[in-house]
């Protein structure tokens, strides 16, 4: 049940998603990845992609325009 953080602050739209996809491949089932983003577009496509993979996703606004996306690698 390890927790990993992926800092994507300042990265434009497709980059956080690509990094998330790559990072999640390395994770074991049951691990959680926290993606920190501030690009409003990633706020849409990262959770959407992760939900499509049937992962559990939660989004939390941690600062003005900064978000943490929690992805539980469930399968």
């Amino acid at each position: 049940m390890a927790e990993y953080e992926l800092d994507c602050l300042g990265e434009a739209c497709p980059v956080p998603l690509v990094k998330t996809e790559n990072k999640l491949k390395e994770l074991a089932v049951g691990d959680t990845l926290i993606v920190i983003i501030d690009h409003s577009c990633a706020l849409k496509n990262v959770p959407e992609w992760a939900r499509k993979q049937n992962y559990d996703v939660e989004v939390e606004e941690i600062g003005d325009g900064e978000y943490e996306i929690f992805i539980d690698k469930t399968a």
Partner: protein
Amino acid sequence: MSEEAVKVITEEPSDASSRIEAEPSSGRSSRRSSRRSAERKPKKDQTIYGLGVLAIVIAVGVYLAAAISAVMGIFWVTGIAFGFILRRTNFCFTASMRDPIMTGSTSLTRAVLIAFAITSIGFAAIQYGAFTTGLPVPGMGFVVPISFATAAGAFMFGIGMVLAGGCASGTLMRIGEGYGMQLLSIVFFVLGSFWAARDMGWWTLNFISNGPRIHLPDVFGWGGAIFVQLLIIGLLYMAADKWENRKQDQES
């Protein structure tokens, strides 16, 4: 595995979005946050700034409408409304073209198609109104020749907007949001536009003006034109919908 993980798995059958809503009652705290955010200072309440900005927006709008022209006032209001909606909905023309390939999601693609359909009806109404009353049809200056150059330019624009993280509207919206990186995008967007404007005459002369100018109502008549346009948008919409579901079936 901890209790928490077991709980998550038992809750799993419900889909992800409804799970979040169900969260607060399910005992498990939905207010998780990382170590980093624990050290962070709490969010500032920005209501007062928001009201200040709103007051300035209204004041400038009134000034523009009264002192310069009503049209300027309308531009001001529509521009701000456009930016606000783009921001609040995470609407992004770049994503609408990119996400079908990258994530298989076509929700924004379909949103753009709906916007095109509404705009088509609106423009047709305005143009037809002018046509029936014998006035010059507005917007005919934008009926530009279509050729291979259109497709080539669109392709290059597509590469650029994905690398820059936004098209023109997306870039401007994110600058307003305070996203520093896009300031860099806009500088080069402007430089590129200058360069294009400088060479536009040559391109127009040698490539662009060779293409035919097509205004659909001239080809299909007014009713036919709107029908054909909406039909094509409808077919694209269905294709986008199919694409999304096809991808989903494949991956799950």
